[in-house]
């Protein structure tokens, strides 16, 4: 056991250098200001974000959560049935189809998103097809819907995989027991299958929601300026405005919100009963 513990030291060093230290640095930046007299403590960055007379930043935060919520809900609505069908296939087909679901992830994330741009552009593939069959072209790119679509497309596997893994491990005798006790197939699903897959559903929600809230690539490429997300805002502070303090403060704020969300989610996971 002691040897095993020692084996974790390299990771501990790694984690401190690349996770803990940068986090502390961000926290430091968010609470300080570089003035003529050197570095000074300040809460200005946070005050600026939570300025109720000018709530533009809070609006962006709210939008980020709203859009991430849409994406997560859609992923769940699409992902659970997909995982369910997948898990109930014969093992040979099951492996084949689950590979198809993962296949897009072998491609670079940016490339995948660019592919969607090619599809959705004003003169893109979708609109060309629409016009060919005599329908008017649509404004698809640079809309909120395009951003949600990009999130769903990119993050759907994160919803499907945990649920699928849970479903194939499901103890068949529990389903038989419900059947035996008089539950019709849909009652077995609601009363046994769903509660048993609940932890996987919640971990899927976490895995989709978190990258959706913080992404800036998807909103930039597919949303243009129509839907600035908090991730865009943070990126801009570092790369354009060079306001490390304010950027860090926003990073801290989003982190606190995500932590709260995960904690809420985690409490649900631990509970004994749902229905």
């Amino acid at each position: 056991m002691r040897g095993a513990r020692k084996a974790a030291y390299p990771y501990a060093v790694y984690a401190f250098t690349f996770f803990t230290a940068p986090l502390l640095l961000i926290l430091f930046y968010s609470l300080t200001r570089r003035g003529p007299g050197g570095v000074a403590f300040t809460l200005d960055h946070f005050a600026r974000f939570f300025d109720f007379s000018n709530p533009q930043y809070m609006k962006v935060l709210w939008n980020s959560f709203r859009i991430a919520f849409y994406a997560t809900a859609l992923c769940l609505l699409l992902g659970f049935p997909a995982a369910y069908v997948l898990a109930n296939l014969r093992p040979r087909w099951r492996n084949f189809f689950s590979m198809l679901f993962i296949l897009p992830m072998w491609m670079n994330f940016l490339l995948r998103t660019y592919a969607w741009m090619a599809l959705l552009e004003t003169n893109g593939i979708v609109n060309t097809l629409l016009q060919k069959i005599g329908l008017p072209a649509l404004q698809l790119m640079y809309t909120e819907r395009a951003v949600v679509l990009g999130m769903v497309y990119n993050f759907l596997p994160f919803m499907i995989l945990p649920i699928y893994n849970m479903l194939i491990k499901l103890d068949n005798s529990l389903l038989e027991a419900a059947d035996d006790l008089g539950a019709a197939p849909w009652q077995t699903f609601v009363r046994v299958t769903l509660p048993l897959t609940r932890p996987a559903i919640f971990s899927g929600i976490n895995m989709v929601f978190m990258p959706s809230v913080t992404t800036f690539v998807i909103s930039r490429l597919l949303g243009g300026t129509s839907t600035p997300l908090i991730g865009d805002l943070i990126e801009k502070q570092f790369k354009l405005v060079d306001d490390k303090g304010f950027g860090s403060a926003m990073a801290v704020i989003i982190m606190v919100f995500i932590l709260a969300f995960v904690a809420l989610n985690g409490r649900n996971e631990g509970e004994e009963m749902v229905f």
Partner: protein
Amino acid sequence: MTNSNIIELVNISKSFDGDLVLGSVNLSIRDGEFITLLGPSGCGKTTMLRIIGGFLFPDTGRVMFDGKDITRLPPYQRQLNTVFQKYALFPFLNVYENVAFGLRIKKMPEEKIRARVSEMLELVNLPGFEKRGVTALSGGQQQRVAIARALAADPDVLLLDEPLGALDLKLRKAMQIELKRIQQQADITFVYVTHDQEEALTMSDTVVVMNKGNIQQIGTPESVYNEPINAFVADFIGESNQLEGIMREDYLVEFNGRRYRCVDRGFAKNEPIEVVIRPEDLTICPPEQGNISGIVQTCVFMGQNYAIEVLQDDYLWTVHSIYHAAPGSPIHLYLEPDAIHIMKEFDNDDAYPDDPEEELLAGAEEEEL
């Protein structure tokens, strides 16, 4: 127990991937009896139980329940409940909700559910366990909850699939008596599957001995033990000495080079037969009264008695006696004519696996089905 049949299996057969698991089985189960399907792993007993439960449909034949054909009915529409081998309790529900599961499906009012659940927990000796989580319970307690859950819906028949298999010996013995009590108290039919012959003999009103997808013998525990119909049954139920013999004439049999009086007749003259003799039917006696004599090879204390191995010519007899016998010393045994069981020759090769590992493998296969 009444004389009317609650379940009838008519010409049931079933194969998996071309392997015949059940071959045209007929069985009548009387209302209120404790019937045990007994046989080695892979004999088809679990398949038969799952066909009765509705988890499998037979390839041919009919399942009749109370006079109605239920062959194609799914489990949730059948008036019977199952206690599963590994309990299959819902891990996300507490004891109360597990037992109440079937009642909630039936939309029973809450106060009735509460009364029924506590009645059931009383019956299985777990009063006050309502709020406990099932995963924290011991194996024996989980077993009891599984029984309470299955009985709560007030089924006419309870199916039990090797329910004591995972318990340790002492607990298993206690649960055997408990199960018998529960069955009598609830006054319903139990269909019990086991490979443990002692379990079958202890609890059952009727024992159905199965092998290779066929029923070998149906009878009371006493009759299958005392009058096994063939060498397989004799070998599977209890210990026995088995010898090849020849029926010289009515009431006279020859085995191990000697002739003995017996109580059987109706065989052809000089017909080859098999002889089965129970170890406890061989009694140690003074030399002048004995009709079998040999040299003691080993003598092992078994708790209630000694297991003594006696070599006579080439045959090694197994004898159960309350008396100790010193290895190496001569011994004389008396065998009564009616303790000699004579049966027609029977192909007993690989009748059941002696190798425990092989048995485990076969058991795992059976579970898959």
